[in-house]
Every structure is written in C-alpha cells, then in structure tokens.
C-alpha cells in the first residue's frame, strides 16, 4: 500500500507545461495551442490534483496504512448509549428510584435537575448478535446484523457537554472553534487520491451539525484541506453549474483562454503558483462533470437502491441516498466522507423520537457496510458511528412514560467503528452499572483520534503542523492508540 501516493505521480499536465515553457509565448505558442486543441489534447488532458503541485509534500504516511478511506457517520444531537449500545440490567432494577448522590459529584447537566429526576431503564430489549454475540438494541436490527464487523466502544468520554462544543471536540479534538477537523488532518497528512473530486467531502441531511462549516473546516490548516459540502439536492457543489446561457463550447473556449493567459503570465513571473492555479481550474472543470456523474445514481441496480432504502419518503430517503453517495465517493477515491444526520437530542419524548431516528439510519448504514463488504472495499474503508455525547441514565421532563427524555452525558457513551483495519466482533471498554461513569478502559477523544490516524498509517505525534510557531497536532499533547481495536 506504499503506492497510495498516486497524487504524486507525474501528470501529463506537467509534461504539457514543460513543452509550453520551452516554446514560450507569441505566435508560435498560439499556433501550437491551436494544433493541440485540434488534436483534443488541451480539452481532455488528465489533470494533477492541486495538492500535487504545492511545494512541500504531505507528512505521511508514517507506517503501512490499513485504511485508505473513511466514512464518518455523525449522529448529531447525542445518541443514547443506554437505549442503543450499552444494556444495563441493573438500571431496570433501579428504574424510578432517585440517583445515589455519589453519582452527581463533579457532573454537570444542561437542563436536567437531578434532584427531581429518577433513574430510567431503557424500554428496549437487547439481543446478542452475530457470532461474537455483542448485544445491540432492538431498535437497530440492521446494524446488529453487522455485529461481527463492528468494534463497539462503550467507554468514550470527554468533558464538553453542549452540542457545538461536543461536535467540535469529537471532530477537531478541542471543544472550541478554530481547529482543523479530522478530514482536513487526513487530507493534509495523506493527500487527495482523487483526481476529479475533492479529498474531503461533507454530506448533510436535515440541517446538519450545529457547528456548521466548522465541522468540516480546515481550522489553521491551509484552505485546500477544507471539506467540501456536497449537497444531496439540486447542485451537488456550490457554483458547479455554468450559467445556463453559456454554451459548453463557449465555456471550454473561455477556460482555454484563461489557461493560455495564465501560462503567459506564468512564463513572465516564473511563479509556481500559476501552475497550481491552472491545475485548480482543470479540477474545477473535471468536477463539473464528475460531480453530477457522482450523484447520478441511475446506474445502480434496483436491488442496491432498495437495500439502502432510497425509495423511502422525506429525510429517510435523503439519508439513504447520502449513504449510497458515500460509497460512490469512496469508489472514486475520496479520502474522507462525513455524513451528518440530525437529530438525536431527545430531552423529551425519547420513545417516539429515537424510534423515528433509528428507522431513518439503521437500514442504510447496514446496507452501506454490506455493500462495501460485497465489493471488497470494507477492508480499506473505515466506517464510524460517531456522536457528540451519550445521554443520562436519569430522566428529564417527566419521571417516566412517553414524555420522558434524557439529558446530555459526555462522561461515558458509546461509538463504534467497522472495516479499515478494525478488529470487528468485539466490545471495548465498559461503563458502570448504570452507564454513568467509565468502569474500565476509558477512551478519550484524543485516544479515539490517535487510533483513527493510526489506521491511516499516521502517527498522531508526528502528524504536526507549524502554527503560530508551534508544532500542533490533532491530539494536542495527549492520546494513545487503542491497539486492542486493531485487526
């Protein structure tokens, strides 16, 4: 897999550049350009990714990568570990009782008043699934069926207990704005293997994450590592469409003129940035056709569409489509895809809302894992179920029944990973008897990030960027790889 640096390969564009540089400007240049255009070389030449032309190669990989792509599914709002992933029989015995005061020390809440709240057992049954026998909630039958591929972490924790800070904590390693997100770090570390699509793409349904563009932002990394928001409706990428009355031939003629004039300027100022600019225009042109091709799913079989549940109405169908698009992007080389799905912020009416959310995501996520597996892509594609935090074992808004909900709980919650070098069929870490605190093997955000980078062949201590004179990294000054999660 050392050959993953395909973006470094010499491209015909560079050859073409050298050719032009030798020939120079003037009439000969024009005659040549015309000649080349007639031969179809100018318009159809493959392109180099802009990163390939930027001085200073990326810092990775540091060791043999297991994963080459990541599909990070972010369930925004805070998924309840107690109702989905972490069964607590003891909680059933304590259901309706006040929480022992010892559990409240050092714990903060957003809304809940612990003195008025009581412990609430999950109303849902958990069953062992797969050969490994990991227990999943009845609300996630599809994901449960993938149990043997999944490494379930029941001991995630951090300290950010509100949504935007929690999202930033999980996605950028710090609960405040300004840091690069995971996808930005990965494309910075490894480059963009795609020649016709950006290396880091975000997809959303509903309104996306509350941290908005910071959730796919580049922070202090250069802007080229910013995630591109791909829209599931209408134009997939902002400003992708040429204005309607500009004919394709005229559009191409203008692009050619832009390139020729940029080349003349480049020959005069001898600035390598002009090459980068030219390559960026080529990538933009490629994206104008590759992005619509990407979202055109008419070539997918009926069976595939059905397995993801694309025919489902409203936002359910949007999420199904996003999952399918994630697979199509990975197929086309995109390094990091983040799918944002809202909202799991069930302060009240937990029962009705969590059922609806699970219905929306369970089938497509299971279909995605199975589809990747069937195509032999799961081995090199890491799939993550992430969220900003879990939820409290005590009730909010009602003592029990249909109106009851749960508050934010970052002190202990569950996420999972599959594929991409993860040893599936295991549970890592555990919570105490009511899912309140870590019982063993706590995984902090920094550990999770260190592990994720490790899967991609990156050492989290060596993946640094010089910012304000300091070598900064995703994991700040902490974090260690959770080696038991690795295959």
């Amino acid at each position, binding site marked *: 897999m050392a050959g993953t640096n395909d973006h470094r390969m010499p491209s015909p564009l560079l050859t073409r550049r050298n050719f032009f540089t030798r020939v120079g400007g003037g009439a000969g240049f024009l005659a040549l350009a015309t000649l080349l255009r007639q031969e179809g070389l100018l318009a159809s030449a493959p392109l180099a990714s802009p990163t390939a032309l930027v001085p200073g190669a990326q810092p990775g990989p540091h060791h043999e990568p297991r994963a080459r792509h990541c599909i990070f599914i972010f369930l925004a709002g805070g998924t309840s570990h107690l109702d989905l992933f972490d069964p607590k029989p003891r909680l059933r015995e304590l259901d309706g009782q006040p929480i022992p005061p010892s559990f409240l020390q050092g714990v903060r809440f957003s809304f809940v008043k612990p003195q008025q709240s009581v412990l609430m057992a999950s109303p849902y049954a958990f069953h062992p699934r797969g050969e490994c026998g990991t227990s999943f909630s009845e609300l996630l039958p599809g994901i449960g069926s993938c149990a043997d591929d999944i490494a379930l972490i029941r001991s995630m924790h951090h300290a950010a207990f509100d949504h935007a800070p929690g999202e930033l904590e999980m996605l950028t390693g710090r609960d405040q704005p300004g840091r690069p997100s995971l996808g930005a770090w990965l494309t910075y570390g490894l480059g963009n293997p795609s020649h016709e699509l950006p290396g880091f793409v975000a997809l959303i349904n509903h309104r996306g994450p509350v941290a908005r*563009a910071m959730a796919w932002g580049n922070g202090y990394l250069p802007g080229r590592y*910013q995630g591109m928001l791909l829209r599931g409706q209408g134009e997939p990428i902002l400003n992708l469409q040429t204005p309607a009355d500009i004919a394709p031939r005229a559009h191409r003629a203008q692009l050619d003129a832009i390139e020729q004039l940029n080349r003349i300027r480049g020959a005069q100022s001898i600035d390598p940035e002009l090459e980068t600019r030219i390559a960026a225009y080529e990538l933009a042109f490629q994206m104008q056709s590759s992005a619509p091709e990407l979202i055109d799913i008419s070539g997918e079989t009926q069976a595939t569409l059905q397995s993801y549940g694309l025919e489902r109405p409203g936002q359910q169908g949007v999420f199904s489509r996003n999952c399918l698009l994630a697979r199509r992007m990975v197929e086309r080389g995109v390094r990091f895809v983040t799918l944002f799905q809202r909202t799991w912020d069930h302060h009240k009416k937990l029962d009705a809302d969590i059922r609806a959310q699970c219905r929306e995501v369970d089938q497509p996520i299971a279909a995605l894992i199975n589809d990747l597996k069937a195509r032999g892509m799961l081995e090199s594609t890491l799939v993550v179920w992430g969220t900003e935090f879990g939820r409290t074992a005590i009730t909010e808004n009602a003592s029990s029944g249909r109106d009851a909900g749960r508050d934010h709980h970052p002190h202990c919650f569950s996420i999972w990973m599959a594929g991409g070098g993860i040893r599936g069929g295991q549970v890592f870490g555990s919570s105490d008897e009511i899912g309140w605190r870590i019982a063993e093997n706590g995984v902090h955000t920094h550990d999770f990030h260190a592990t994720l980078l490790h899967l991609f062949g990156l050492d989290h201590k060596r993946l640094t960027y010089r910012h304000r004179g300091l070598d900064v990294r995703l994991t700040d000054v902490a974090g260690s790889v959770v080696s038991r999660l690795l295959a």
Partner: protein
Amino acid sequence: MVGVDRITAISTSVSNHLPNPMLPQLKAILCAAIIAIGAFAIAGGIVSADPGGNGAEFLPEEFASHVLPLLRMRCVSCHGQEKREGGLRLDTRRTTLLGGDNGPVLQPGSSENSELIARLRSQDDARRMPLGESSLEPEQIERFRRWIDAGAPWPDALAGQEVASTHWSFRPIDRPAVPAVRDAWPRSAVDSFLLDRQRRQGLHPASDADRPMLLRRLHLDLLGLPPAADEIEEYLNATGPDDCERLVDRLLASHHFGERWGKHWLDLARFAESDGYENDNLRPNAWRFRDWVTRSINDDMGFDEFTVWQLAGDLREQTESSNLVATGFHRNTLYNSAGGADKEEFRTKAVKDRTAVTGAVWMGLTLNCAECHSHKYDPVSQREYYQLYAFFNSTDDDQFQDAPTLRFLERPTRLHRRGNFLELGAPVDPGVPAFLPDLLMRNSRPDRLDLARWLVSPHHPLTGRVAVNQLWQHLFARGLVATPENFGLRGEPPSHPELIDWLAARFAGLPLANVVDSAGDVNGASATPTQPSSAPTPGAWSRKALIRLLVVSSSYRQSSANDRPGHAEIDPENRLLWRQNRIRLEAEIVRDIALATSGLLDTSLGGPSIQPTLPKVLRDLDELKNERFQESSGRPYRRGLYVHMQRTYPYPMFAAFDGPDGNACTIVRDRSITATQALTLLNDPAIDECCRALGQRLMESTADDSGRVRHAFEWCLGRAPSPAEEEIIRQLVRQQQEAGASESLVWAGVARTMLNLDETITRE
C-alpha cells in the same frame, strides 16, 4: 541585622540583572523575605535560624560547593530552562525565589515554611521530589534546610542567566545605525538595510516595477481597489521625481484607505456580527465598532491611542462617547446562549480569549499555552497568565446585546488548575509577566487602563516590533518575522533584526541613533551617528507615516518577476526581498475588483452591513431554511468589508477565498489556491452579474474589438495587452461567435475570462 542587609543586597543585585525597571512581583517576594528574616532578628553573622542549634553555621561557600550542584544534578532536568514543570525554574536565583504555579517554594529564613523542604522529605511518592527518582540523602536535605534557614544566600556571580534577557524580541528595542551602502538604489533607510543583507548573500535587488504595475500595486495595497481608467491615464502621464510620493499621499488621504487597513485590523479583532456557537444570534450593533476602526485609521489616530481606546476606553477619565464603541474590540468574543450552556464556563472562555488575543495582537505571544500549565517555551508562568487574565476578568456578557458602552465590572481572579474553570486555585492579582517591563499603576491595584498604557509605552519591547511586522506583511506578503503571531522562542527569528528594530523604534517614537529626517530619507544615513536626542520622533505611532515610508522605498517598488538567474537558488523563499512578492488578494478584495471593473461598485462608506443575495438553489435548500443569508438586505454592490459576518455561516464566496470566520483572531490569512475558487469565479451568480455588466460596459466603450480588448486589460489588470494576449482574446471572441453566442454574451464571456485570470486576483 546582617541577615536583612544580605537580602537587601540580593534584591539590589537581582534588580540590576533584570530588565529595568524592577519587577513588582519580585519586589513583593523580596519584601516578604526581608520581613521573614527580620522576624528572627539574628545578629552577628549568617547562622542557622534554628534556635535549637542542631545545624552548624551555613558558610557562604557552601552554596557553590554543595547546594548549587544539588540543584543542577537533581532538580533542573525538570525545573530548568527547557522544562519548567509546575512553572518552576531552579536554575537561576530570581526564578527560584519567585516560585512556581502554586506560589513560592522557599521562604528564606524559614525552612519549616518552605515547600521545597516539605517536598524533599515527603513520604508520598506522588509529591516527593525528585519525582519518580530516588530521594535525596538526609544530609543533602539537611544542607538545603540550613541554606534556607540562613536566608538562602545566592551570590551574584552564580545568579544565572534567564532566557528572557537573551531572546531578541524580549530585549529592549535597539536603535541600530543605518548601514552605509554605496549604491544609487536605496531611496530610504529601509532599502539600505535590505541591500546590505542582499550584498552579503550575493543578491541584487530587482529593478522598479513598470509604472502600470506599480500603480495597480499601490491602489490594491492602500485602497483595495484597482485604479480606474482616468487614474491610470493621469499616473502614466505624470512626470517628475516625486510623482510616486504624490500618488501615495493622494491614496493615503482616500477614505478607502481606512476600509482597506481597517479590515486588516478587524481580522485581528476576530470581528463578526453574531454570537457564534449553536444559536449564533445576531449582534445588530457590531458594525459600529467596524466603522470606528475604519474612521480611526482614516484619521490616522496614533496606534497608542487606538490601543488604549480599544482595551480600556471605558476606564478613561475623559471619555468621548464617539470613542467608547472602541471597547467593542473585546466584545467580539464568542457567546454561547444555548439553553444548556454553563454561563460561567463560557464567560471564562471569553475572558481567556481576551487574554490570548491581547497577547497575540500586541505582543506576539502565544499566551493560551499558559492556560493549563506554565508556558513550555516562553517565560510566562501559569500564574502570570492568570495575572493577565485578571485584567479582563469581568462580568459583562449577560448584557451582551446592549449598547457597547457598558463598563466592565471586575471580578476577583483565581488560577484555574489545568485550565479548568471548575478547579480554582490560588487567588491572583492583575499583573504582567516578570520578563517584561514594570507596570506603572495609577492606583494601588493595576487595571486595564494601566495595562493598555503599559502596552504602548515606547519601552515595551514587543508592541512596536509586533505592530510594524503586521503592517510590513501586508506590503511584502510576509513579515520580517515570518510568524507575526509568535515572537516567542518558538517563533521564527527576524530576517532583518536591525531593520525591524529601526522601524519599531521609529514607530514607537524612540529617538533614533542616526540623523534621519522624518520621512526616513536616506540622505543622512551615512553621516556619523550622533547622540540620541531625548525628543520623540515626529509621527510616533502613525500608521500612515510608517506605511508611506515603506511604500515609497525602492524595495517596495521592485518588480515581482522571479526572472534573474541564481537568485532563487540562493534564497528560494525571497526572504531577503530581492524582488517583490506576488500576493493572491483577500476574499473581499477579489469581490471588490469584480464590482469595480464592472462599474457596479457602490462606494458608500460605513453603516449597517449588507447581506448579498445567495443563489436561489441555495436559498431553497432545506438545510438553509433558517440561515441568515436567506434574505438579502442593504445595497448589494457595496464593498466586501460591509458583507455581514455570521460566525457559523460565512459568506460562501469569502469562505472559498480564505476569508476569516470571526471565530478566532486571524493574524495571517491563508492564500490557498483551490478548485472551489475557480468554480466561484466562473459561476457564482454575483460574479456572473459582474461579468455581464463588465461585458456591457466594454461594448458601450467602443465599437472596435481591439479597443474593447484594450479596455478589458486596462480595467482588470491596469495595463495594455501584449499582441499575443490580444490575439488570445480575439480568438475567444471568434470561437464564441462560432458557437452562436450573441454579442452581449460574447463580451460577457470575455469579461468572465478576464475576471478569472490569476493576475486579476493577484497583487503583482
């Protein structure tokens, strides 16, 4: 009272060793020490304070022979210059007496009250020093005890050197002589410094840029707008030795100057018009701060006054209401109004942000590193961080939406252990780091006004250097210090240390060593240095004077072409400025250029921000139903400076061109080159509108194709096309005609091509 005399002697020698004047914290500690010794009232020599007499007399030479070696062998690997665990350094006298994050570690004269002895003797592995190593021998601990009880004598000769006194930017600003270079090239002292360095590397400066390029450069750098056709004609026809100077004076007097340079300052001020975080509520009055900044810069308010108004305008005795809005600088912090947010948590985050931004903007310090532990590299302890924090620790956020003229109410401050606002440590009073000059207080307790005046005292080693470096980078693409946000030990050293000091001294109003007239003219540069006069240089803290000095220099006027053999091999990054640098323009300026060339630009000044229309496809999306850019408001063709800044949803075109989002202080903007930028300039509806308007304007300018091509180049690039360039455009016209485009579409297509050129969005 020999013991007291001894300590007084230490006090005097320590203060001689430190940057003048003496540091208040140290004074306090030494006073405490003197009192402690005094309490024992020991006469007749330095003896053990233990009345039981189970220790022998501590001999002065024992420190050098036994105590210091013990400190060096067993302590300084963790408590030294490299690693300062717990904010404690035991390798110099001053820092040893000062103590660490948790306070003093020894009380001279009283070993039983000295944490050092307690830690050496502790039975608790987690507390006993040296941590994780074998404990000291009992007689070694006894030696420490006797040393402390004897008043902890530490001879001057062994006092030790601290980093603060050797790092270039922490030293007083030097007033270097302008190098005497015999050459016709320098127009100002700036050039002499640069040329001197180039010569030593075998480099030669580039010739002046041609007049069209220089004109466009000055317009873009000073106003952020390309020169109009009549301005080009006027300048190209102008003659005379000082035509460039006259042009510069005209540009500096334009009100667009404040818009251009005000934006640079707003980047530092993390200016935005919404709260940030989840709710991201609007701040409908934030634009008043923006207008104050642009107005102050247009009025050339001195940087010292500009600073004091922003940091402490509310505390001044003579408060002019028009300037009170300046305190909006530190109201630009984020605010989390989410229902579940912990108010105290986000209040303390805002105070930390104010502390960090003040450190970064005025002093080039990465103070945020000291939030959780003493700074790893710079001499800022955690306690000193919270002393600075104490200046900004106030209650004001609850009234955030009110008019920005509220006074801050001060709060008592405690250190946050590990940076956690829930784990409060020792109380701290407002104060400044010990390695910097003393703070002059108006009253017994220093306040923000004292801090602001301290920052702009001409003798502050950092403020002047940091400020000139920030201005420099906007004119030469990169600062003389390539890390303008970090002047500390991990920052880049300056490429031209003498030049940055020469400029900083001028800017801060320190008298110069050389006879140089106020414009920095080189005529006197080779004259014999004279005694520095005590009168401050005229034009102190004037940004316009400094910018003028820089842009009329030969260095600034150089061509940006990288066309001379050998030079790039010697200095590939052009750090020595043997040519000008090309600069990809900022997001707002890219938009301003499109509006200006197309004739759509609305040049009205100030007032509430605008919300340009977003593409319909974007407005119709579910995900944006609640977003702020749904509705357009205001006149859409105003400059980019006036585009509404929503923290969680930056204007897409600006985000594409690395515009700041206002979430953090931006000292250096990225200048990325991306496909998204290409798509924006090709297809964004607002740019498309400019293309069509420019096409129309070209058609109306003349009926002659060749004339239209000439106008297109003149308006967009400020120069005439070469024959090859003209041929490319004429060929484009033919190709579009062949594709069946109407005449207006053809010229809109030419305009689209021109607005997408690298040169159009580059300051050459």
